[in-house]
């Protein structure tokens, strides 16, 4: 039987916390920026001119049908050849934004579609233009309709970010891997970082529930 020894892991717990903090930061930034991207993507895909629609479609299909790992490689190793050199954490962040943007666009599109056509017509009859309608009439109900989908996509993204260590980004999984290669206490490290990811996803679920309660708490029928 293997002798568990968590002491070396907890001795270096600080380094894991630093990694976890980076994971949280990267995920949050990716979510906010990705969400903005998603909103424009969704609107572009629903009512943009044809070339825009095609471009958005290509973007969505390419990102959704290739592994995140490969997208990471691309942003880190291939972009320098195109003249854009990003550090590992920046490249990871960019990959996360681009990835979340693709999924988010599809989700937001469903949200926009769920806002009744009647509401959009009503907005027209009180004289609102396209952007006003989007901003004041569509956005909030659309977000409310797809809020669960958006938040679970975010959690999925945060967990998927555990592969960014392959391009030497320094997130929680990377901190765990480094600690592992120093102490060789692989199982202890993996158990601890799994628990940390779990704690983070629970915490985020809680925060999202709270945000949902306040931001989207208007009553609806049925």
């Amino acid at each position: 039987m293997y002798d568990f020894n968590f002491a070396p892991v907890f001795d270096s717990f600080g380094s894991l916390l630093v990694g976890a903090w980076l994971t949280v930061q990267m995920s949050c930034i990716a979510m906010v920026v990705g969400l903005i991207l998603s909103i424009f993507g969704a609107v572009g895909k629903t009512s943009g001119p044809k070339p825009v629609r095609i471009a958005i479609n290509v973007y969505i299909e390419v990102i959704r049908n290739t592994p995140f790992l490969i997208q990471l490689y691309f942003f880190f190793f291939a972009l320098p050849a195109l003249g854009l050199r990003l550090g590992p954490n920046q490249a990871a962040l960019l990959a996360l934004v681009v990835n979340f943007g693709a999924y988010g666009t599809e989700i937001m599109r469903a949200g926009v579609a769920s806002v009744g056509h009647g509401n959009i017509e009503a907005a027209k009859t009180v004289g609102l233009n396209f952007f006003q309608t989007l901003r004041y009439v569509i956005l909030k109900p659309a977000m409310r309709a797809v809020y669960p989908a958006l938040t679970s996509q975010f959690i999925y993204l945060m967990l998927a970010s555990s592969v960014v260590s392959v391009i030497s980004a320094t997130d929680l999984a990377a901190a765990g891997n480094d600690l592992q290669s120093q102490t060789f206490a692989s199982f202890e490290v993996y158990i601890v970082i799994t628990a940390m990811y779990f704690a983070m996803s629970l915490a985020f679920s809680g925060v999202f529930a709270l945000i949902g309660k306040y931001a989207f708490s208007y009553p609806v029928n049925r």
Partner: protein
Amino acid sequence: MSSQPVPTVQLAPELAIEMTQIEKWYGAFQVLHGVDLTVAAGERIVICGPSGSGKSTLIRCINQLEAIQKGSIKVNGTVLDKNAKTVPLDIGMVFQQFNLFPHMTVLENCVLGPVKALKVSKEEATQTAREYLKRVRIPEQADKYPAQLSGGQQQRVAIARALCMRPRIMLFDEPTSALDPEMVKEVLDTMIDLAQDGMTMICVTHEMGFARAVADRVIFMDHGQIVEENSPELFFGNPQHERTKNFLGQIA
């Protein structure tokens, strides 16, 4: 200012709406077949007819929610641009399904258009909104959300919201047919009240009581055409067309 010509006194009654030879297709299906309709300012018109006859389509064409393929529409003397993306601001509309914005309070619903589209100050818009809410007899509901109101109250909010834009013409598309019997009365009372003000009104409805009480003219549509057109007394008392007679027989 003084260099401008003094407006001439109008002899003929001013025309609110002039529709000439309107034709409208959905794809290959023709919904409106050369409809002509003229509505004087201050006139109150009721449109009825069987389901699918094109009533909704007709009034939606008036405020540009639907594009027409042929014919022309003049609103308050101006010809509507067929390619315009916005609706004419002096036409208010009340939908069958209310279409209130669910994430805004009653007051926010009423204030949105005036503030964003008419660029009225927030204070002024709020004051106007409160007046109209009083007018439709639900001033105390101002801070509730639509879902917290009964159907009749929601429809009255929709009316107030349309009025806040201070339109000269109001369109109603079966405003009471989504309501419980008791709530129908509340809304009809509100509408009768408005009619007394001399506002131009076009209302799609099957409520004969309402038609009798306020309509200057009743229009019967079938298959995308205006089949019969008369004063309420003559329309209900002595319908001319076979189709009208049949229809009245069934909804009675």
